């Protein structure tokens, strides 16, 4: 049998179903791989060896018909897993074991997946490099001296390093797609409300969207289908059927895009992408044209204001959401010496428990929401959000999907953007508009620039997630998947 860790999720599901390998063998192979490489990659914050082997044994003992029965998966540490440490990569939640599972985790269990552990991320999902993890960064398997993207760098690196075939990420401003792009993997942000947020540690509630990470488009679609769908425990969950993303990916893999119109956003053209990124993007666009697609230039005049609007809306929501970390109900408590007041203990706890980026965003959000500044900052950002939504809606009257590079630059070296936070924010320049609009978008590998992966982004209308899978699978059929150098 060839190396089980090199197989796709679909292949593994088949191998297990046919009895060619047991779920325990598949899980053990991945746990061994983690033991062999994760000291260098640091994709995982916690490996649940015992729990994984138990879940795999249960698959072997019983039902093997679930769509992903026995397939290992890694879960971003911002998602609550019952009895398994969940920290959001923050010191303030060190050692916390949630008393319940996120809806997504329940669905993963029902589908028969085997959770290997929890992946590293920027603290509370705020960042683009995992450098803001309180537990040290994840290293990009393509070049261990470079960032794996963020916030979900651990999930992306885990699958790029063959430690898991699948992973779950969350995308608030690009945290699934940008790590996908810089690690040469596939990352999809579903329509907002298409996947449940119940059990997700909230960062920016109007933007947070969990979604799949995989090494190919078909696997991402399989995982998407498992986790998506209405959840009565999330009041912003959309009570509509999930588009058939698996069928769409299959259709796209046939490599025929006749009649499909791709919109090229005019306003993205001058926005400082590296030449190598632009080159790979343009070549991919030509490949799609050869498959029958038509390219139409469209104007989205307010996209240039998406980044500023996002960095007002997301910090505002974060300043409110993170108020729950008060040293009372869970997590860290500092300075409770019997003399200090609740307020003093709270301030000392939050000071000790939060890292610099989280503090910056809490302060920024508190500022944007304070009286006197509310209208000029938060209120105006919400109006810009309306205008960006209108830009998307009018673009989708002319084209089926919008396309762009996923991120303006390839994986950058550690430390090169941490001193100036705004330079880090630019990593999300092309991914943020989608979050403000609420539509789905996917990043798919489209080539290399100086030996490092470049991502191609496909954005679709809300609840048309199937459309982006079709185009992404077609591109994959033309340019292939990427394989990182041996670790």
């Amino acid at each position, binding site marked *: 049998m060839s190396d089980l860790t090199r197989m796709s999720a679909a292949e593994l599901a088949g191998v297990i179903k046919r009895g060619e390998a047991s779920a325990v063998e598949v899980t053990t192979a991945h746990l061994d791989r983690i033991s062999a490489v994760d000291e260098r990659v640091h994709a995982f914050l916690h490996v649940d060896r015992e729990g994984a082997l138990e879940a795999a044994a249960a698959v072997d003992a019983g039902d093997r018909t679930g769509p992903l029965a026995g397939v290992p998966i890694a879960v971003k540490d911002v998602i609550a897993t019952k009895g398994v440490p969940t920290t959001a990569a923050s010191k303030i939640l060190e050692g916390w074991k949630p008393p319940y599972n996120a809806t997504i985790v329940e669905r993963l269990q029902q589908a028969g997946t085997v959770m290997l552990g929890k992946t590293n991320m920027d603290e509370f999902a705020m960042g683009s490099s995992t450098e803001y993890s309180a537990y040290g960064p994840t290293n990009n398997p393509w070049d261990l001296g470079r960032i794996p993207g963020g916030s979900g760098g651990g999930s992306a690196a885990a699958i790029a390093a063959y430690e898991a075939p699948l992973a779950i990420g969350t995308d608030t401003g690009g945290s699934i797609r940008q790590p996908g792009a810089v690690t040469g993997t596939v990352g999809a942000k579903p329509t907002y409300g298409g996947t449940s947020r119940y059990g997700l540690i909230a960062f920016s509630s109007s933007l947070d969207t969990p979604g799949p990470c995989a090494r190919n488009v078909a696997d991402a679609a399989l995982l998407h289908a498992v986790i998506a769908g209405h959840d009565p425990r999330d009041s912003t969950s959309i009570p509509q059927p999930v588009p058939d993303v698996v069928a769409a990916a299959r259709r796209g893999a046939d490599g025929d895009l006749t009649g499909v119109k791709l919109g090229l956003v005019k306003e993205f053209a001058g926005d400082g992408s590296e030449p190598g990124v632009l080159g790979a993007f343009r070549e991919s666009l030509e490949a799609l044209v050869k498959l029958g697609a038509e390219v139409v230039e469209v104007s989205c005049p307010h996209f240039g*204001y998406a980044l*500023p609007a996002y960095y007002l809306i997301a910090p505002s929501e974060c300043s409110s959401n993170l108020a729950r970390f008060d*040293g009372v109900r*869970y997590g860290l408590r500092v300075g409770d010496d019997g003399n200090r007041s609740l307020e003093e203990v709270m301030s000392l706890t939050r000071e000790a428990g939060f890292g610099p980026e989280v*503090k*910056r965003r809490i302060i*920024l959000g508190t*500022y944007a929401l304070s009286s006197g500044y509310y209208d000029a*900052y938060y209120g105006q950002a919400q109006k810009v959000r309306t205008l960006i939504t209108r830009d998307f809606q009018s673009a989708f009257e002319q084209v089926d999907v919008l396309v762009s590079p996923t991120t303006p630059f390839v994986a950058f070296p550690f430390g090169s953007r941490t001193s100036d936070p705004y330079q880090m*924010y630019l990593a999300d320049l092309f991914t943020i508009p989608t979050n403000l609009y609420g539509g789905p978008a996917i990043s798919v590998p489209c080539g290399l620039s100086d030996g490092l992966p470049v991502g191609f982004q496909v954005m679709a209308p809300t609840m048309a997630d199937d459309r982006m899978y079709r185009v992404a699978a077609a591109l994959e059929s033309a340019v292939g998947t990427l394989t990182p150098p041996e670790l």
Partner: protein
Amino acid sequence: MAAISREEVAHLARLSRLAVTEQELDQFAGQLDVILQSVARVGEVAADDIPPTSHSVPLTNVYRDDVVQPSLTQDEALSGAPDRTDDRFRVPRILDEEV
């Protein structure tokens, strides 16, 4: 001109219950100033007649039927507490004890 002063950052940190250090104040004030000058661009868009969007899903309140659902036990709910007394979260004093 700076968009935000060191004193304002100190005030916001107090409001946010963050006992920031002097060194952090120096660092954050400069960084937040750069960020604020960049994000202030949202004000360039003339949007007087544009309604705000708080959420991409058109929201109305979602209710469920008023029937008992499974929920956490008291022990489960208290399982992550840094400190507890009997079946309650224990907190530091809230009022001054000058009685």
